[in-house]
């Protein structure tokens, strides 16, 4: 990736970290002195490179894994903020990415029972819960929402 692409990718992740939300294409354009059309093209390229994923047909960031751009049932409380993760794995991915202690609140997909996990000093609390990966790795990016 060019330096500009790397800087914009990092900006998107920092924006998520600070606000729990993705930057709009206008936010990114303003930060980098680009026109909205130029920033939109950069978003499309970063989407194509799987640096993050746009909601199809838009320039709205749907996922910058492990962060979700939309509300989900996978909640991660860390550093005084509440993030939405894309899935069970990504709910553990957020504290791993932030190198932060965290409290994860989610539910069992069958029973609806509460699942709570805590990360403290790089260790995870004991749990009998399981994570099911439905789709083999090679097919993960065919349909990310399904994955």
């Amino acid at each position, binding site marked *: *990736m060019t330096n500009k692409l*790397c*800087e914009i*990718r*990092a900006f998107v*992740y*920092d924006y998520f*970290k600070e606000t729990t939300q993705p930057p709009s294409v206008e936010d990114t354009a303003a930060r980098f002195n680009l026109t909205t059309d130029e920033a939109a093209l950069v978003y499309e390229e970063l989407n194509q*490179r*799987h*640096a993050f994923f746009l909601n199809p047909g838009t320039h709205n960031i749907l996922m910058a*894994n*492990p962060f979700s751009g939309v509300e989900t049932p996978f909640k991660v409380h860390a550093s005084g903020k509440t993030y939405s993760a894309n*899935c*069970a*794995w*990504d709910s*553990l*991915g*957020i*504290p*791993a*990415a*932030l*190198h932060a202690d965290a409290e994860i609140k*989610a*539910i*069992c*997909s*069958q*029973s609806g*029972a509460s*699942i709570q*996990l805590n*990360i403290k000093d*790089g260790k*995870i609390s004991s*749990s*009998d*819960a*399981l*994570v*099911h*990966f*439905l*789709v*083999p*790795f*090679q097919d993960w990016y065919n349909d990310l929402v399904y*994955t």
Partner: protein
Amino acid sequence: MLFFRSEEDLIQWLESKKVKRGAVLSIDQVWELSQRWYHNRMSLDYHGRTTEHIQEIFEELGLTSEFWKAA
């Protein structure tokens, strides 16, 4: 990737959704995977990873079945 409270819950879910079982990891395994996968994601220097590196991460965690083949 979804959470299940127990193996019984997972089995019931697979039956209700009529889908095949994929791969099942413990919470400890997913935490290990998360740390290896995401530890440098916030870095300006993160440029993605090669297929070889992905396979290496899976293999380090003992994820060697066809399900985890990166290429």
